């Protein structure tokens, strides 16, 4: 039987990156996950810190990390570790042939399908917002039947952003997908994975745009982490291209996930998918194993240390009932307000951070779970990603950044 040093629970961004980090240290790693996580829904741009606690846009995330509350995961890690995690991530993408751009000292403002700009830190080259910023002539591309993306909404919104009063034009292109189903960006991206799709698209796009224009399009440039189609399109059209953030499924997230999963393969990390971890086996404050499956067929896996990267309410790592919340694998305590009206605010948006969004596990400096009084609960379990308490990624724009930085730390400790 395979002897594991480390078992990672959860295959979202945090789980994948933690597994890579531990494996690179020479640990024998196994990753067990139920699903693919938020990355396939949310996307591949890495937010680190877009807004400070007062809602003010952050120019330099690295500098702003110091201003966060003490229980924020970034505050627990400290600026230096976040910097190292970001560098390591950038190096990994580079080495895998799909470099990201950006650094921890700057935020970039990327366009979203709502015609808004959003601060993020690292993006694939296909989302380089500096290109859009500098453009005078912008061609917004829609796809016939892609209902999740309206070029008009995009243009109307962008026009209202300071500095974005550009010369916009709209083109609508056909795909060759005609199986009668409604289209998503992922369908279009899969079409563009095929040689015939690429050829047809290059021809149609070239005919529809003027050289020198900047082409803004939904995230559809293939599902694989490579830039060949992107560069081919730039060549053929004589234009620069920028992908926007859209509705799920998130093609840019698929690419990043694929990159990381490829990397896991090379590092000989065993990945068990569609496996539900139902509980952990704990003896004397240490986890000795985890149990997967359901009542009729259970399996136990043992290791020296464990990384809990099972996500938040969306990922499934946390669950709420009326009046209480819990962590599902170890049944670790989650502190919640006694009065249910204090779980959330009267408005969902434009209201700052939501109390429920910050629910999660409290941890020590090594990211191990502690109780409300600070007492260590499990000495060989390290928590990474959305299971952690103390941050609201939707408002501060920090989701993938917290996942990466805490995963790096957990992977380095475990």
């Amino acid at each position: 039987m395979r002897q594991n040093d480390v078992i990672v629970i959860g295959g979202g961004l945090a789980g994948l990156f933690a597994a890579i980090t531990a494996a690179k240290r020479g640990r024998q790693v196994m990753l067990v996950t139920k699903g693919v996580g938020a990355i396939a829904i949310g996307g591949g741009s890495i937010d680190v810190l877009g807004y400070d606690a007062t809602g003010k846009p952050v120019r330099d995330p690295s500098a702003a990390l110091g201003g966060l509350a003490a229980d924020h995961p970034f505050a627990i890690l400290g600026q230096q570790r976040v910097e190292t995690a970001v560098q390591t991530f950038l190096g990994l993408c580079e080495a895998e042939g799909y470099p990201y751009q950006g650094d921890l000292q700057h935020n970039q403002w990327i366009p979203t399908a709502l015609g808004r700009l959003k601060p993020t830190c690292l993006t694939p080259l296909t989302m380089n917002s500096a290109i859009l910023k500098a453009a005078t002539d912008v061609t917004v591309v829609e796809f016939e039947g892609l209902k999740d993306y309206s070029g008009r909404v995009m243009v109307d919104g962008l026009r209202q952003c300071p500095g974005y009063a550009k010369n916009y034009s709209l083109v609508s292109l056909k795909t060759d997908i005609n199986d009668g189903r409604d289209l998503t960006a992922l369908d279009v991206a899969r079409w563009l994975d095929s040689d015939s799709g690429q050829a047809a698209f290059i021809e149609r796009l070239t005919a529809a745009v003027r050289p020198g224009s900047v082409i803004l399009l939904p995230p559809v440039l293939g599902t694989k982490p490579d830039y060949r189609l992107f560069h081919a399109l730039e060549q053929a059209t004589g234009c620069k291209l920028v992908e926007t953030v859209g509705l799920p499924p998130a093609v840019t997230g698929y690419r990043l996930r694929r990159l990381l999963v490829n990397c896991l393969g090379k590092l000989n990390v065993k990945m068990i998918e569609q496996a539900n971890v139902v509980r952990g086996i704990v003896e004397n404050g240490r986890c000795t194993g985890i149990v997967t499956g359901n009542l009729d067929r259970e399996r136990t896996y043992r290791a020296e240390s464990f990384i809990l990267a099972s996500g938040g309410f969306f990922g499934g790592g946390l669950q709420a009932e009326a009046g209480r919340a819990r962590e599902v694998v170890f049944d670790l305590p989650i502190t919640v307000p006694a009065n249910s009206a204090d779980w959330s605010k009267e408005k969902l948006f434009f209201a700052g951070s939501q109390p429920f969004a910050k629910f999660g596990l409290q941890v020590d400096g090594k990211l191990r779970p502690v109780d409300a009084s600070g007492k260590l609960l499990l000495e060989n379990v390290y928590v990474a990603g959305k299971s952690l308490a103390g941050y609201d990624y939707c408002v501060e724009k920090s989701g993938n950044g917290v996942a990466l930085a805490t995963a790096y730390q957990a992977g380095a400790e475990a």
Partner: protein
Amino acid sequence: MKKTTAVIIGGGATGVGILRDLSMRGVAAVLLEQRDLAYGASSRFHGLLHSGGRYAVKDAEAARECAEENAVLRKIGRHCVESTTGYFVRLPEDDPAYEAKWVVACQAAGIPVEPVDLARAHRLEPHFSERAAAVYEVPDAAIDGFRLCRQNVLSAKRYGGKMMNYTEVTSIEQQNGQVTAVKTRNTLTGELGSIECDIVVNAAGSWVGQVAGLAGIKINVIPDRGTLIAFNHRFTDRIMNRLRPPANADIFVPHGSVTLLGTTSSPTERPDDFTPTTEEVLALIDEGKELFDELPRYRLLRAYTGTRPLYCADPTAATREISRNFVILDHAKEGLDGLISIVGGKLTTYRLMAEKISDAICGKLSVQAPCRTAEEALVDDIAPELMQQAKKFFPTAGVELAASRLGPDLAETVQRIQANPAKKELVCECELVTLAEVETVAHDDTTFTMSDIRRRTRMGMGTCQGTYCGLRGLGMMVDNDLARGMTTENLLREFLETRWNGIRPILWGQQMREVELTRGIYGAGLNMDGAVPDETE
């Protein structure tokens, strides 16, 4: 200045019923609604077309009215009613003496009531409690309040009646003891206006006291809150009532793919006190689980609250005890001719209420025409040829749904798809609402917001509660130049926040997951609500 004979205030069932009745009798009438049709109790209710059974013991008159109107509405409002029938179930802890009294009272009120063999009842409705001691069947049914309001307006329009939504009446003008006009304010744009008239009908539901107050007249009404919860699936095909004196949480109503449980009852100051609380929801589940043992494990969809206007001579009376019969108040008695109010009642009896008040108005105007609202259907049935055509374009499961939802708008929707087959794509996957349908409805000159589209099509009513269809619906409005002066941000916010109002009190389980997704999309991903600096770099 615009002119008409009668201005009706309030676009709930009562107001639209009056608009239709007066229009059919040839009286020029305009209905003014401060928000959208059915903004008040007529959509924030249980959706039960009462057989009368609930009132049989306590209020024989109300029971008889319900029984009669139930039969009328099944006929004239076919497309608003789902003829489910209903069970009254007595549990062992419920008083058997009440059962005996109830059966006699139902018979006296003309309500057909049939005992049902317990084994058979459980075969037909497998989920309700095995503990049931007795079951009776009555002709309860489910009714769609918004559709009922809309179809009354469509019918009235054919007779010259007019409806203006987002038009709030801000004052009632009078001269020498006679009503002369109303002043209005558009609640979306702030635009002011006025309409000259001889008659003002106050059908403002829970707001009836406020509206009378505009003319300096006092009506003693207490708004009474009632909260309901919607479960994410249909676990009963019949209305399920507890056979006991009316109390909280004792009715389950299946509505399309969901099931509604209600209600609670508590007095409030504000007619628009529409925010449900977790305590109310938990109390409903706790009580409701007596009839459905598995209830605490069923997935919730949302909670909502409506208010009932309870009229009382004695303001200290306990609210549940007040007769739910309606009253008509002719304020000529208080020295203001032309103002007439209608208070109370039920949605089930809206047509009868409209008939009675229209009789009184026609009396004043010396109009002889009789009431015909009970004879003529609200909207024509859809021609079989059109249904055949529609079947080619709609998702199989969606045709019948779309047909009853759209009624007369079906033809235009089918035309849109014929002209451009891409328009059959689904904007709302949960409720199977096509782009063509959303476009048809959005082009209507009384559609302004995305919630208006939701009420007319059910877009956003399903499991995802507007998360996916929000951006799509917005795209459709912008692409068709239908934003009508509203910013994309305001359109989307209004849509998502009204959904949130119903999810907030049930923020656990799957709803918590859905909310993280909604915030992830519109917050983390699309950045709907984050500030954008003056200069980005």
